[in-house]
């Protein structure tokens, strides 16, 4: 493979996150020869989305914490006397504090696959049986006394083959105590499926009307239905990314869905925030006068700049204080502050708040009644779309291809080449490197922030309505001063990110501690761990957790270029995802860097109509031959371009 790569490019892009992919597409579109590599086996870096099995193996990678140092051919020898090398890192250190919890009842997946759907039904139907208590015994949150009681019950009631079962149960209980939250617990509990099978299930049909429970094995089996985003973002309907997608025509590679509702969490209850005209009109929770107040305030915010006398006097105070001076009831103030401006009591001043509100309103109504879009099959689609555009214009793609070092010319202080994992030296004019690829030597002075993330699989929505296909965003303000607001995005199965009957919930906030410490309080407020014992009081229930994941992700978005040590001027740094809701940062960054590489070039202009492209030889001979070179370059990398198609397969 190494031999196949051309030895010279105009731009080499290392990392396939969103900003890198946009730049690669823009450069390729402008006629630059682009090589785009990623050491990972998937596109997107920390912007990727995974199927359920995909996220499990991603987890494994981070939990094992193993160094995948497969030393390639020594590159040091290749560095000439007038050259220096900037070694790149081989290990990703952007993800930390990974914790996984499984609450769904678990059974051996092999068995389920053999037994088929009927068997599964039985397992869920027998909840009236004593074994149901046994299920709960595996739950980390279940208290001990219950466990013991259930074991006793079991020994009393199962006449035959009980000895073995009871033994297994006590076994599990012990492990459950010692390594409560471990993945291994999940695996062990497979035995419960066996126990349940031992119990006669003759009266099963009588209990049929109960909602079928989703088991862990179902999740595994339907794992391909999931597209779990590492970074949880939405697209503002009039944000930079939408503009770019439309302008560049990249939008044709993706599909989007409108977020259907904005939610707020107030006084222990989840409620819908009326933000559009139609919402306000239809709202049952607002009084007539509140409707008018809210509409009046929002109308003012739409063009607040035109009425300086209305806010000039309040410029110095926080937005929340300003709202108190307006004709708004407390719950309207809450809606505007947390759900529309999406800021906090202390974070922003009047102008920022008005700006944020205006931006929100400005995005309303372009595609629907909320200002946001979500890409079907997950956020991870977006970098891939730009990669595809890059490839269409001749960019070359190599996944699982790491770069050992950048080669810098001592005299000119410019980077001139890379040396890849096979020891091939590839020359280029410009080098774009995603932050996580730099070694500790380069980043020794860099201060990173962290993002706390959680991904949950739940069995119902946080706010039930007629339709179960709602996509919601909910902001939960930080409780104490100094803690950050938590952004909750709940995706339904029609977003193609989770299996039918489940919801995929993303929680995000700026870290103050580990992800679990930051987010678990909110998770506990909104959800309850999955247990089978609670089936009776269906009414008051919160959605139940089937599975939960916590991790921290490094936020390199705010790092200034100067903090990196000794970077040559033609090496540009792309940051990983930020904690913000929109993607404006990535697009801004991409455009800025593109202008440095290709000054005076249009940024991702729309591709020409196919009928306007001149293909026959009426142009100059030399140019024609150049074009053929590009064609060759394309045909040289069939494997790579195939891997561009990969994500599509995965998402089917």
């Amino acid at each position, binding site marked *: 493979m190494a031999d196949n790569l051309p030895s010279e490019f105009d731009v080499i892009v290392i990392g396939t996150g969103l900003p890198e992919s946009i730049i690669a597409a823009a450069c390729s579109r402008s006629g630059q020869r682009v090589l785009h590599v990623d050491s990972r086996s998937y596109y997107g870096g920390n912007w990727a989305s995974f199927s359920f099995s995909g996220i499990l193996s991603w987890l494994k990678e981070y939990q094992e914490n193993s160094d995948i140092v497969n030393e390639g051919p020594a590159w040091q020898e290749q560095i000439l006397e007038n050259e220096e090398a900037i070694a790149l890192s081989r290990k990703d250190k952007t993800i930390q504090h990974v914790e996984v919890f499984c609450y769904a009842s678990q059974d051996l997946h092999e068995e389920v696959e053999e037994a088929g759907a009927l068997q599964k039904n039985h397992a869920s139907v027998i909840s009236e049986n004593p074994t149901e208590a046994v299920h709960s015994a595996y739950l980390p949150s279940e208290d001990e006394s219950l466990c013991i009681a259930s074991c006793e019950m079991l020994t009393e009631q199962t006449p035959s083959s009980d000895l073995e079962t009871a033994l297994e149960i006590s076994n599990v209980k012990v492990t459950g105590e010692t390594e409560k939250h471990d993945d291994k617990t999940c695996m062990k509990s497979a035995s419960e499926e066996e126990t349940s099978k031992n119990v006669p299930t003759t009266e099963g049909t009588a209990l049929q009307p109960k909602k079928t429970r989703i088991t862990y094995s179902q999740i595994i089996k339907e794992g391909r239905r999931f597209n779990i985003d590492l970074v949880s973002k939405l697209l503002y309907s009039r944000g930079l990314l939408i503009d770019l997608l439309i302008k560049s025509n990249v939008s044709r590679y993706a599909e989007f869905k409108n977020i259907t509702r904005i939610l707020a969490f107030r006084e222990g209850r989840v409620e819908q925030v009326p933000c559009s005209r139609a919402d*306000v*009109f239809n709202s049952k929770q607002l009084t007539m006068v509140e409707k008018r107040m809210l509409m009046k305030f929002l109308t003012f915010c739409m063009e607040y700049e035109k009425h300086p006398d209305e806010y000039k006097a309040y410029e110095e105070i926080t937005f929340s204080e300003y709202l108190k001076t307006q004709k708004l009831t407390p719950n309207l103030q809450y809606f505007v502050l947390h759900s529309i401006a999406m800021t906090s009591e202390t974070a922003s001043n009047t102008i920022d708040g008005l700006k944020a509100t205006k931006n929100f309103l400005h995005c309303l109504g372009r595609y629907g009644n909320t200002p946001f879009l979500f890409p079907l099959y997950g956020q991870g689609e977006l970098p891939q779309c730009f990669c595809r555009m890059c490839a269409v*214009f001749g960019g070359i793609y190599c996944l699982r291809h790491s770069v050992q070092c950048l080669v810098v010319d001592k005299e000119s202080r410019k980077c001139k080449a890379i040396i890849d994992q096979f020891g091939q030296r590839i020359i280029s004019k410009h080098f774009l490197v995603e932050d996580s690829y730099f070694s500790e030597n380069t980043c020794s002075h860099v201060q990173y922030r962290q993002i706390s993330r959680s991904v949950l699989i739940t069995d119902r929505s946080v706010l039930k309505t007629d339709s179960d296909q709602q996509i919601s965003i909910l902001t939960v303000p930080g409780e104490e001063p100094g803690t950050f607001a938590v952004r909750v995005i709940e995706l339904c199965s029609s977003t193609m990110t989770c299996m039918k009957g489940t919801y995929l919930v993303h929680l995000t906030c700026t870290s103050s501690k580990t992800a679990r410490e930051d987010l678990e309080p909110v998770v506990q407020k909104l959800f309850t761990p999955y247990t089978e014992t609670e089936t009776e009081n269906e009414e008051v229930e919160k959605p139940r957790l089937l599975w939960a994941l916590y991790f921290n992700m490094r936020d390199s978005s705010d790092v200034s270029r100067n903090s990196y040590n000794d970077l040559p001027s033609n090496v540009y740094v792309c940051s990983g995802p930020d904690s913000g809701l929109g993607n404006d940062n990535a697009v801004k960054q991409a455009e800025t860097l593109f202008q440095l590489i290709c000054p005076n070039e249009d940024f991702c202009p729309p591709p020409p109509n196919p009928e306007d492209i001149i293909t026959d030889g009426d142009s100059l001979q030399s140019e024609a031959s150049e074009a053929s070179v590009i064609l060759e370059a394309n045909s040289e990398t069939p494997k790579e371009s195939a891997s561009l198609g990969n994500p599509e397969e995965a998402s089917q």
Partner: protein
Amino acid sequence: MHGRLKVKTSEEQAEAKRLEREQKLKLYQSATQTVFQKRQAGELDESVLELTSQILGANPDFATLWNCRREVLQRLEAQKSPEELAALVKTELGFLESCLRVNPKSYGTWHHRCWLLGRLPEPNWARELELCARFLEVDERNFHCWDYRRFVAAQAAVPPAEELAFTDSLITRNFSNYSSWHYRSCLLPQLHPQPDSGPQGRLPEDVLLKELELVQNAFFTDPNDQSAWFYHRWLLGRADPQDALRCLHVSRDEACLTVSFSRPVLVGPRTETLLLMVDESPLAVEWRTPDGRNWPGHVWLCDLPATSLNDQLPHHTFRVIWTAGDAQKECVLLKGHQEGWCRDSATDEQLFRCELSVEKSTVLQSELESCKELQELEPENKWCLLTIILLMRALDPLLYEKETLQYFQTLKAVDPMRAAYLDDLRSKFLLENSLLKMEYAEVRVLHLGHKDLTVLCHLEQLLLVTHLDLSHNRLRALPPALAALRCLEVLQANDNAIESLDGVTNLPRLQELSLCNNRLQQRMVLQPLASCPRLVLLNLQGNPLCQAVGTSEYLAELLPLVNSILV
């Protein structure tokens, strides 16, 4: 640069586009020509369908071609087997849909669809409803589609409740939708028929309250959206008043009988028939209007023969029967009396509350309160102000008179574009109030001075007034309808801006006319005065025409019987 795509320049693109357009135009024209030739030759076969579909597919607004298609389809109907016809209809429906996608507001296409569906033995109405729903989803205000939907709903006898639910869903999405609100106003009376309400129908109170809440949601959310306000007005409004004869007046002196109607009518042999019974026997008379123009009007009169007025009987009864209006009225002229009359009282019949008229004043009261609440939040909203005024009038015109006038002032300030309309409306209300006060006082003298009136209306209600004071207003004319004031003896209209006197005509009892300080310029406008036989005093001081040479002479000639003319 490397790998840069070769793209046609904009000139090349423009040239390619131009060629393409030329090509298209040629095809279009030749197809049109062929169709017309075939039509002329009577060759109405499937090839015409094919050709017209090419053209209509690109331009669905070519009405003649739709006619061609109908001709072809009609002919084919006779020739084809049912199976073939079914296939033909299916393609036709599909084609129509594709045309609608080209232009969803094409009159021709929607009409053709109506025509086609109307001819089918078993039309699939469910499919058509679904089609409407789809097009209304794209544009909820496409009134072509609304029209078609009403056609389909009527044909398929869709229950009004279902259609109402459909309007619900559209209003939920966007309440700025006249069509949806209007459809509700058609459906609700069907759903809740009220036996004794007029054609427009009133709603039962629970339904009314629900609708009021819905529409309030709309105007509290966006008080500048008119559609909701109009629906609100419909909800509170009532049907046109029943046809009636408002007043009957007999005068012995003038030997004349005068009738005033609830709406303008044209009485004549071929139009409205009016029967007069004198002492229970029919009398043939000639009806005319007071101004002699015999246009549709509120007031009609006839001359009575001396026999009908003689003093031999203790009294004469006069009964007028309006056959078309299903109404009649009777009055009595007693022996020794100069006149006799019978009239509906404006106070009893609440004649002037017809703008809004929900019987339950509690509903109106609560509407007024919520509008006032909204007005506090939106002091400059004209719809809200106007609705408040209308509600106050419906509730109690006299009680709220002062408040109403204040609201008028605010309203005029916020909506200067409609100042003249508002002035007229205000004049009308003030006149109504004065009339009510006059009737309460049981006098025949009406004082309308110093009221800033810009227009005179309800003059047909003043049939019996003897003294009228219009001084110090902003009137620009004494309109023809003033001729209805058959009993008027003294008319004061000083200090206005009157330029014409068309209404001061044929007033049999007018003795004094004072028109000081007006804008009478031409002598010609004084002409009508000559038709008032009893005029003895005329004051024209302070008018431009007084300056003109020869005015006095002219007047002396025109009005020889007038004793004193002040110029």
